[in-house]
């Protein structure tokens, strides 16, 4: 080691800095090192340059001194957490996940849950050993699967000597008349369309024995695209194009019949093996580039038109678009009006996934999917996979246009483009062309208007245009209010109406319930179980109970002495709180056979009314915890209201009825269920809200049919029907001393009606649907909770 004692002078700062960055090279560093060794000033400078390391060193010393014991479970827990998060947060969103998060256990889920064996109690015993049972004229040989609508059975039709698929509606859904009718209607419409790329619907009927409607369909021999992608990951570009052409052909036929699928996803695309003896002979393949015969498939779409029925049911139950949003068009995910171009968007996602093995907006959670869906543009296919030809990549991009106007405008355009390109790729023989595609079209069209394009009179709803027009009209009536909250990315309407006095931020999801605790305190129950209390006069948050309940807070109420509060959440127990201690009152337990939906205290005396999703309605002598069954409703109980004198109870349910109960008829000593003393049944579809007028002489109700109805509370006469909202009306509330009724609609409006004239006297339009509206005790403070997660408060004069 050369001793260069001459380096007695302190090196310049930049030399020290280089020393910190560079590898300590002997020849250069040594002189410096020698100097530093003996120079406290340089040592200090080095320390400064490297940053004072004492805290770091202390940290490291502390850690090395007290490392967790080797037998600590920390390491394993870290591994598990990492695995859990990276796998669950990353994996594809399970079908139906959104419906689960959107809170309704009895909402039909679009996925299958293997752990949950289908309920086959409606089958009659079979005489054939090994068969599951009999259903109508069919021997049931097995279960094909479960869907959102019910169960799919493999049946044998003896008269025609063929196997069929039988889709039986979920018995729970069959209770809902509205839904049931729609199921049958849509299935009949689907049955009217015959096309090689649609699963044939043979028959739609009601089973005499069980009363359940069912659909008999072609049993397809093959696998779903979903299964196929799980098996092979992805398809080669030519097969993707082939898939696209056939799906589009099926869509085209259905769209022309006026049907929109609305749930195009890999699980609904069946790949029929062409080796099936029933199918026409495979096309002779002239060139070696044709898809190998053994892997040739014919695409068949299933569940056509049914999605709409299911979707309506889900929407009305949850106010939230259910199902996996992975394949939804942005306008559909936003809950907006949907036309056939939404199916084309879904086709785009499908092709994207088929080409890459991954849906274009796949993300960890449904919410993340929605975010990506609205904010992000997918990476073009040709960049993800260079084997994908430019035209296919462009076509998929066009299908995935956020704005429906920028997509292909019809499935027919897609069929013709794909057929033409496939022909050029040499993968298509004339026999492969979907039946009604004019062969000349793909040879001559080349981007121009195809010559056999037939303009069929189909109804395209100008969704965006319509919404904008709506906003303009409202804008004329009401001064436009600057947005007090972030509008939904896809909402193209501005808020309109009187500016709220306060906007109370719920911030944890849709607000479903409201309760005035006093003149100035207002509580809101939020989708994720949070309950927040504000002083609505100042806007100050008084308290927040994060996820203090499991699932959505559907309803809440305060006891007449102001001491207790009840909450109906997505579990089978009413949560009973003491408002003084702000703790659950453990002494009381009010349980139900199904998850709760409604709860209300009587304004006089000691009654608590509770209703669940499976028709159980109870009135409790709550101090003594004695329940009394109120029988007669079918399906969910959505709303409960006591008359101001506490003598009568009104209930509203999914069965479309409002019932009134005379509580004085309850004999608490004998457990004999009480029957309704009056029924009001003019609503079409579920009734979501019911309330008494302050003087107890009238009842106001609202529901699925978009109406607000006023009834004589004494004799049940329908006094007034107000066509209040365009869509579900979720809540009604009396105000103005009984002169007004406020209503909250999924059409994003809150309106106040003059009860006598039925005229609208006040209105507001928000960016998202409103679920709940309530007048304060003063009769002029109006609060409304919406899907945007905010509670808006006005003074209505």
């Amino acid at each position, binding site marked *: *080691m050369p001793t260069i004692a001459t380096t007695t002078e302190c090196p310049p700062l930049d030399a020290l800095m280089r*020393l*910190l*960055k560079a590898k*300590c090279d002997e020849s250069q*560093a040594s002189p*410096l*090192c*020698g*100097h*530093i*060794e*003996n120079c406290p000033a340089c040592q200090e400078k080095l320390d400064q*340059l*490297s*940053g004072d*390391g004492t*805290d770091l*060193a202390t*940290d*490291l*010393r*502390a*850690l090395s001194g007290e490392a967790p*014991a080797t037998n*600590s*479970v*920390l390491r*394993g*827990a*870290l591994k*598990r*957490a*990492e695995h*859990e*998060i*990276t796998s*669950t*947060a*990353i994996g594809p969103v399970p079908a139906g996940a959104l419906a689960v998060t959107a809170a309704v256990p009895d909402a039909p889920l679009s996925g299958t849950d293997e752990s949950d064996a289908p309920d086959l109690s409606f089958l009659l015993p079979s005489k054939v050993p090994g068969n599951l049972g009999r259903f109508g004229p069919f021997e049931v040989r097995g279960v094909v699967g479960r869907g959102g609508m019910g169960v799919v059975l493999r049946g044998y039709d003896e008269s025609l000597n063929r196997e069929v698929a039988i889709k039986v509606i979920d018995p729970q859904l069959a209770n809902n008349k509205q839904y049931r009718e729609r199921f049958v209607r849509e299935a009949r419409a689907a049955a009217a369309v015959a096309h090689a790329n649609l699963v044939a619907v043979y028959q739609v009927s009601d089973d005499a024995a069980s009363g359940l409607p069912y659909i008999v369909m072609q049993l397809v021999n093959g696998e779903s695209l979903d299964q196929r992608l799980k098996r092979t990951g992805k398809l080669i570009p030519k097969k993707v194009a082939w898939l696209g052409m056939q799906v589009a052909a099926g869509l085209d036929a259905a769209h022309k019949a006026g049907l929109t699928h609305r749930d195009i996803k890999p699980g609904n695309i069946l790949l029929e093996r062409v080796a099936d003896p029933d199918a026409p002979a495979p096309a002779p393949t002239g060139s070696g580039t044709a898809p190998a015969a053994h892997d040739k498939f014919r695409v068949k779409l299933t569940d056509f038109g049914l999605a709409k029925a299911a979707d309506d049911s889900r929407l009305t139950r949850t106010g939230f678009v259910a199902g996996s949003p992975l394949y939804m068009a942005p306008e559909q995910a936003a809950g907006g009006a949907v036309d056939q171009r939404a199916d084309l968007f879904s086709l785009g996602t499908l092709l994207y996934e088929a080409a890459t093995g991954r849906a274009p907006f796949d993300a*960890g*959670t449904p*919410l*993340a999917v929605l*975010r990506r869906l609205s904010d992000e543009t997918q990476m073009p296919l040709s960049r993800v996979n260079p084997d994908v030809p430019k035209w296919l990549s462009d076509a998929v991009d066009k299908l995935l246009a956020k704005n429906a106007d920028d997509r292909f405008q019809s499935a027919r355009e897609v069929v013709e483009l794909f057929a033409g390109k496939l022909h050029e790729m040499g993968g298509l023989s004339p026999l492969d062309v979907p039946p009604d595609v004019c062969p000349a079209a793909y040879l001559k069209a080349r981007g121009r208007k195809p010559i056999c394009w037939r303009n069929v009179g189909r109804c395209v709803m100008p969704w965006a245009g319509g919404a904008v027009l709506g906003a303009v009209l409202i804008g004329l009536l009401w001064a436009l209010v600057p947005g007090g909250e972030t509008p939904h990315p896809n909402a193209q309407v501005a808020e309109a109406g009187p500016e709220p006095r306060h906007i109370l931020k719920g911030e944890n999801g849709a607000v479903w319930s409201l309760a005035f605790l006093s003149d100035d305190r207002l509580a809101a129950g939020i989708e994720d179980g949070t309950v927040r209390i504000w002083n609505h006069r100042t806007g100050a948050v008084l308290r927040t*109970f*994060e*996820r*203090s*309940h499991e699932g959505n807070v559907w309803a809440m109420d305060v006891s007449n002495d102001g001491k207790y509060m009840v909450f109906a959440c997505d579990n089978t127990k009413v*949560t*009973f*709180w003491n408002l003084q201690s702000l*703790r*659950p*009152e*453990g*002494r*009381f*337990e009010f349980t139900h056979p199904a998850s709760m939906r409604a709860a209300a205290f009587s304004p006089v005396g000691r009654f608590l009314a509770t209703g669940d999703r499976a028709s159980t309605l109870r009135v409790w002598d709550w101090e003594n915890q004695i329940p009394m069954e109120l029988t007669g409703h079918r399906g969910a109980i959505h709303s409960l209201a006591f008359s101001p004198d506490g003598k009568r109870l009104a209930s509203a349910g999914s069965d479309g009825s409002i019932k009134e109960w005379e509580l004085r008829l309850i004999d608490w000593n004998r457990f004999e269920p009480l029957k309704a003393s009056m029924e009001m049944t003019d609503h079409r579809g579920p009734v979501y809200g019911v309330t008494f007028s302050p003087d107890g002489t009238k009842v106001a109700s609202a529901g699925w049919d978009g109406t607000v109805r006023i009834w004589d509370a004494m004799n049940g006469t329908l006094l007034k029907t107000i066509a209040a909202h365009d869509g579900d009306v979720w809540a009604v509330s009396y105000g103005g001393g009984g002169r007004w009724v406020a209503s909250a609609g999924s059409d994003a409006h809150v309106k106040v009606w003059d009860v006598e004239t039925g005229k609208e006297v006040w209105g507001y339009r928000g960016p998202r649907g409103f679920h709940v509206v309530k007048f304060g005790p003063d009769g002029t403070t109006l609060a409304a909770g919406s899907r945007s997660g905010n509670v808006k408060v006005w003074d209505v004069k």
Partner: protein
Amino acid sequence: MAEPPLTRVTLLTRLKDGRDTEAWREFVQLYGPVVYRFARTRGLQDADAADLMQDVLRSVARTAPRLEYDPKKGTFRGWLYTVTRNKIYNFLNAQRNRPRATGDPDAQERLDAAPARDEDGPDADWEKEYQRRLSARAMELVKDEFQPNTWAAFWQTAVEGKPAAEVGAALKMTPGAVYVAKSRVIARLREEAQRLMVEEGTD
């Protein structure tokens, strides 16, 4: 920290993507032990602290897509502290109440958990655990960049507090080289810790 805002792709932003496995891994590695150790300082046993940690991380994974980074509302770290603190509070409270628990114990414990106010900010223990973890994580990440000798020189002088001359003799390095080695490692560690903090977006 003066960092141009444009170049910052914070950990939170990456977590929100939901598909960035690397970000989630980083998150678990960085914060898992912080939560665990903080829970231990609050009296939780090993297994309980580990369970609680998983619970907290799960909450974050569920919530991340909805989180908006808004410096006005406090930091991500502060938010995580609130989540952790409340869970610990619930846990301890549930334990206390277990013998006489009636009704819905979940609701009760959540009720009792007065959420931490943002303006209070994370407490000192939390910050200390965070700083320690940051240092440890930085160490894990940079250690391999150095020659074993250089690292040993750093460790023995800075962490173990031995004199440079003694360390140099053992490692066959001049004391000056030991100094330089120590400074160099510290500089790099600080840089890495800084990067972690910036990435996390909580400065």
